[in-house]
């Protein structure tokens, strides 16, 4: 028994040493990037922390130790730029909106205007979240007046409302409509769509800025783009 404990402790010490000796980056990223970033091969040890863009900005402002921050809208990033907390941001991906419906599209939602159908249970993201604001812009462009049943606090909650059948449709990012999400996507034509821009920037207070710059640089490189494209993101 003692030997087991001893070898367990030894293993812990070794594990501790290996992680400590390799340089580690902390990347704060928008929730919608979670799946794509998981497939990224950054070439170094990276710790990801995913949250809503507004929350990420608040974290950097509060001095959370981080090397890179990637948000889902430029307004959020601009706040960090103005406060001189980050280096010049680089746009590395774009995203469009899509209508999420139940698998098989039982409600026969074809166009944005269908969302105005009386009695249709529509879930949107709240206007405080980028995707909620973009959805409002798209609806405005199409002069579609809707009466949502709920304004969810992040995009994944909108997806889950539709997947669970509580809502019949929702407006989400095109990248949120995945096989695993349990919803089907209906495209929104470009003239009504709103394009979300994803900037990434090196945090000035970061401990390893050269490495952080390399991470941001690789996001726009061939392999970074391929990983993002595989998850439905558009090129910058």
């Amino acid at each position, binding site marked *: 028994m003692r030997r087991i404990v001893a070898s367990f402790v030894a293993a812990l010490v070794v594990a501790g040493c290996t992680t400590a000796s390799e340089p580690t980056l902390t990347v704060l990223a928008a929730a919608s990037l979670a799946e794509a970033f998981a497939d990224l091969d950054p070439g170094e040890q990276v710790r990801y922390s995913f949250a809503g863009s507004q929350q990420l900005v608040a974290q950097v402002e509060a001095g959370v130790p981080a090397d890179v921050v990637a948000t889902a809208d430029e307004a959020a990033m601009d706040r960090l730029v103005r406060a001189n907390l980050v280096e010049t941001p680089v746009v590395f991906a774009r995203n469009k909106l899509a209508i999420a419906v139940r698998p098989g599209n039982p409600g026969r939602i074809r166009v944005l205007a269908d969302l105005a159908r009386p009695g249709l249970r529509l879930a949107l993201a709240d206007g405080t979240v980028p995707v909620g604001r973009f959805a409002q812009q798209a609806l405005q462009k199409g002069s579609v007046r809707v009466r949502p*049943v709920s304004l969810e606090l992040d995009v994944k909650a909108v997806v889950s409302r539709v997947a669970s059948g*509580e809502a019949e449709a929702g407006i989400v990012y095109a990248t949120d409509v995945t096989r695993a999400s349990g919803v089907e996507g209906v495209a929104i034509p470009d003239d009504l769509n709103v394009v979300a821009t994803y900037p990434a920037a090196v945090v000035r207070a970061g401990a390893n800025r050269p490495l952080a710059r390399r991470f941001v640089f690789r996001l726009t490189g061939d392999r970074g783009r391929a990983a993002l494209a595989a998850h439905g993101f558009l090129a910058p």
Partner: protein
Amino acid sequence: MKRTALLAGAGMALMVLPLAGLLQRAPWSTLGTELASREARDALGLSLVSSLGALAVSVVLGVPLAWILARVPFPGRALVRALVMLPMVLPPVVGGVALLSAFGRRGLLGSWLGSLPGFPLPFTLRGVVLAQAFVAMPFLVVATEAGLRQLDRRHEEAAATLGARPWRRFRTVTVPLIAPSLAAGAALCWARALGEFGATITFAGNLPGRTRTLPTAIYAGLQTRPEGAVALSLVLLAVCLAVLVALRGRWLGTT
């Protein structure tokens, strides 16, 4: 002794410092305008209505439950009591998921109840009330049951020998005797319902004027209009303090 005092001081700081931070951040000069805004009034009104509704549901269903748990021995009573208390420790968001699994459109009962008037519940005020009652009712049940157990039953027996029927006995003898416990339970239940967030947002959603309660408005507002969110937080803080002060004799002791 010294170390104990130090740890106790740190413990107190942990509780008090965040509140001090909140007070320091409060937009005192514009508090009135913040609370008079349409959004704040909607959330305040909705929270008031829904939490009182949750309290009413809790009294109507919780007092009989407490009575059964206190007075009627039956196999598995300890288990039932544990189940009734579960929402007190269950993470509220899990409660919300559980409510969806039961009363959602594709839930256990929801798919049967769906066509009845008043259903389905998600995205409605009734859904908010249900979520709040689910989380808050245990506070009322626990306090009421404790009151019933401590009661000297000779008073009820005396009333019975004088010919009072059960309902009259309950109304004129039991309720006045357990009134302090009942009031304390009701106050805690109401305060818990008022502050409920996780189960409510998960089960009932968030729509201003319909299902957006105070805590949801605070959470949503924090990222865009922090002053408004902090102002609403102060309201909840004040209400909770008021409830505690009202329960002073019972919970804080006289020293």
